[in-house]
């Protein structure tokens, strides 16, 4: 049995840990609200843009010509670029580990199929976790720790430009984003999204034109050329926003659990402490009484 003093020390240390986790949970809850709003506000734009791209690609496909490279690809599928998006910080449960697991699975499949894999990491945690095994595949890293609030616009634009440049230079054929999608506070699901060649989501609403033919101003190609980079940026941005909201949600849940665990631990320890104290009092009483009887 631990001594009273030891128990007291442990109780107070668990209590201060609980205070920290509780504070972290509250911070995460406040940040989550903002991140969630930002993620939700960006959804209509992304969805509409996806629908327009789906419409355009359907039209372009029926035309039969190749179209811009961002859409049709480089004609090969040899080199895959994976963008792995994780958080800058830990203390958010399995959030980062799950995303990394998904990325590893993807890497494994691609390698088994004989493809060359390159990795760009976004967020420090993913870089640390993937670095051990796949450090030699890293080509770049995007640091989001300077981003204030949820203004990822600049970071997304920068990464979008960088990707387009690398693609032009023929550094890769297919780019895929791995990130955790924010479903709700309790569930963040790691998903993959193909960025280049652009692939509009299959569930994007396509509009029945009732046999009418689209008119394009200036021209179909020029519209696609302005829209595709924007679509790329929007997808990266929405990934970043989703991931940020997911991180805060995961962090909130993890900290909530930690706070609860600490509470249980404190209860257990207090019980032990009280029992030990009672035992000691009883022991002292027995000593006094038996001493008196001996007289």
């Amino acid at each position, binding site marked *: 049995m631990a001594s009273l003093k030891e128990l007291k020390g442990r109780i107070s240390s668990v209590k201060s840990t609980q205070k920290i986790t509780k504070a972290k949970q509250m911070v995460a809850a406040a940040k989550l609200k903002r991140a969630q709003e930002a993620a939700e506000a960006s959804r209509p734009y992304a969805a509409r843009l996806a629908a327009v791209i789906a419409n355009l690609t359907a039209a372009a496909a029926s035309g039969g010509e190749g179209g811009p490279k961002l859409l049709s690809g480089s004609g090969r599928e040899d080199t895959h670029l994976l963008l792995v998006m994780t958080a800058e910080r830990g203390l958010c449960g399995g959030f980062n580990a799950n995303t990394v697991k998904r990325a590893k699975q993807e890497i494994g499949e691609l390698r088994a199929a004989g493809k060359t894999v390159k990795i760009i990491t976004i967020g420090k945690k993913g870089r640390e976790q993937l670095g051990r095994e796949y450090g030699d595949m890293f080509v770049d890293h995007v640091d989001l720790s300077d981003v204030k609030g949820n203004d990822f616009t600049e970071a997304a634009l920068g990464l979008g430009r960088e990707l387009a440049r690398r693609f032009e230079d023929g550094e890769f054929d297919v780019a895929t984003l791995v990130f955790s999608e924010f479903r709700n506070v309790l569930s963040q699901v790691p998903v993959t999204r193909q960025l280049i060649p652009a692939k509009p989501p299959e569930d994007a609403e396509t509009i*029945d034109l009732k046999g009418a033919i689209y008119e394009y*101003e200036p021209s179909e190609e020029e519209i696609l050329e302005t829209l595709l980079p924007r679509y790329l940026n929007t997808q990266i941005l929405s990934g970043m926003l989703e991931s940020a909201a997911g991180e805060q949600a995961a962090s909130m849940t993890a900290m909530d659990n930690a706070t609860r665990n600490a509470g249980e631990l404190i209860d257990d320890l207090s019980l032990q402490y009280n029992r030990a104290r009672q035992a000691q009092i009883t022991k002292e009483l027995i000593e006094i009484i038996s001493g008196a009887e001996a007289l």
Partner: protein
Amino acid sequence: MADTLSFSLVSPASEVFSGEVDHVIAPGAEGEFGVLPNHAPFMTTLKNGVVRILSTGKDDMRVFARGGFADVTPAGLTILAEEAVDLASVAPEEIDSEIERSRLELKSRGDDEPGNARLVEHISYLEDLRAAI
């Protein structure tokens, strides 16, 4: 046949407008155009400028859009803009001071700091916006 046009104007930051209107006039890349209900399918990029939304019984709404793109389908008109603000909701003085502030910030920066291009773009956007009021 629908006699109103369902119109939505969205930017990455928010959905600026969504609803049934009579008539929308937008600054197309090759000239200003109006869209009435049952317009033929049509797709165009937009110049930076003012999108006017007209509906009977209501005041005209004027929205300044940058980096816009319009898509007319039988289902209605969608304008996607990189930035969009309702002109009724902005005060000229605020924009003036914002322009001033951004210029000062640009001056205080080094020559090739990242983000400069974005700031210059932001200023020109504000100036266009100011001119539109």
